[in-house]
């Protein structure tokens, strides 16, 4: 009970601290992006408008959430050491892994809040644009047979919101939480936040190539031994971030089967737990 209380307290504190650091100011940029997008889109057909809106909004959500995950996580350990709060905390009966867990939960909560806010903004703009197009469609089809009007309206609504966008947004959150956990693992080794940020960014790119390396390694292609060894190392040591990139296809209208969503989410949760456990293992022996 004490342990969960300490975790919660550290988590809430981390969340509040990040909010005080004006992390949510990026929402202004997100909102500006939406407005600029909407202003330009007036020239396009409604199918193009909605496609652009979804492409750019969900893309921006993925960029911002990944940035927050890496930067916020890379920064907390050096900062806590610099202003010496870590020593005050660990002098109390708070195990090191609880300290890390609290920090990670605080960052994940921040990611959740940021993605919720961005989703709300995105859905509001989508709804607003849809209402405009529907009103135009109804006005231009006045007097047409009801079936034709219904078909035209269906065409508009099909191009805007579909329930599949929700698992797509959930996948952006899972990927960001995974990145936070991976960065936490790296910061357990690291001595500076710059090193952690650079390493996490490099791992982000390598993680997207993990599936290619895995395929190369497992296909048993007749290549030099060191080339296969390298591919095996990438496949075993790095996360498969490409597996979480379902949003691009979801935006394009591909329906995500429940089993695929649940299995991907389970893989994400597994990665988060394992990276956290390894971070706790390394951090438990670290000299502070």
């Amino acid at each position, binding site marked *: 009970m004490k342990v969960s209380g300490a975790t919660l307290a550290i988590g809430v504190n981390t969340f509040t601290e990040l909010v005080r650091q004006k992390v949510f100011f990026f929402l202004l940029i997100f909102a500006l992006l939406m407005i600029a997008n909407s202003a330009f889109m007036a020239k396009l057909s409604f199918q193009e408008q909605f496609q652009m809106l979804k492409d750019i909004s*969900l893309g921006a959500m993925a960029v911002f959430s990944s940035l927050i995950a890496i930067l916020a996580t890379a920064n907390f350990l050096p900062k806590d050491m610099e202003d010496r709060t870590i020593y005050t905390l660990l002098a109390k009966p708070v195990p090191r892994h609880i300290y890390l867990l609290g920090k990670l939960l605080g960052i994940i909560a921040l990611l959740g809040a940021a993605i919720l806010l961005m989703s709300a903004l995105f859905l509001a703009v989508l709804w607003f644009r849809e209402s405009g197009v529907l009103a135009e469609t109804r006005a231009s089809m006045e007097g047409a047979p009801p079936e034709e009007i219904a078909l035209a309206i269906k065409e508009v609504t099909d191009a805007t919101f579909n329930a599949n966008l929700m698992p797509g947004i959930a996948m952006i959150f899972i990927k960001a939480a995974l990145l936070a956990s991976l960065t936490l693992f790296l910061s357990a080794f690291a001595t500076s936040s710059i090193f952690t940020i650079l390493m996490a960014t490099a791992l982000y790119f390598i993680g997207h190539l993990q599936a290619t390396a895995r395929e190369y390694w497992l296909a048993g292609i007749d290549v030099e031994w060191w080339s296969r060894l390298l591919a095996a190392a990438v496949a*075993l040591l790095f996360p498969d971030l490409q597996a979480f*990139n379902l949003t691009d296809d979801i935006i*394009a209208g591909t329906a*995500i089967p429940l089993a695929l969503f649940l299995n991907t989410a389970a893989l994400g949760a597994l990665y988060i737990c394992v990276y956290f456990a390894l971070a706790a293992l390394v951090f438990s022996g670290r000299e502070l």
Partner: protein
Amino acid sequence: MSWRKCAALVLLALFGASVLPLQGLLEREGAAAHFHKTTLSLDLRERIGQAGFLAALSGFRSPLAALLWIEAHTAWENTEWGRMAGLFETVTRLQPRSLTYWDMAAWHMAWNASTAAMQNEKQPSEALRIRAQRGYFQLGRDFLERGILNNPDRHQLYLQLGILLRDKFEDHCAAAEAFLKAAEFPDAPPYVERFAGYEMAKCPGREREAYEHLRRLYEQGENQRLPSLVNLLREMENKLDIPAEGRVE
């Protein structure tokens, strides 16, 4: 390196090995559900540049495609048809599951670019203008056919292909086939079946089949009994010598 760091790396590798089956399963499930169809080839890298390729590799395919689409829109405003075609090629490769991109690319090529080619005042030879126009028709068709290959589970591009074959190629037999394919999907609009019947009626050798198809639609009720369908049925009844008792009212 301390034993904890070594242990962490060993455990990480063991974990990596243990999730290989799950990763393989996800890959198969994703492929079956038409996910991850984009192939990021060297050719695509040349088209979008190093930074674009890196963005596409890092999971930002859709925003990159959107930005290139905006560029293509600007090219359209400047009537740069060749540049547009190149950009459409790149966008559709980045987002092969987006019907909007395939559909709009085909429309721009087969309708707008072809008309512009035919009205090109800089080209005095009519034969060459017609050739250029046909080239754009074919480009539009290519976009739709490749779009269908990437989206065999959706009706929209079959419908657009049918319209293109009907209006630009005047290939009624092929158009009928495309409309019939589209009509096989449960979410296809009801007019697709009518379109298939109209085109079949113009396809030599398929008149009887067309009549039966249109008659079946007629029997479905008032919703399908549009003047064009009823007139065509009457015309075909005369042509096929349908006995008076079997004719529509």
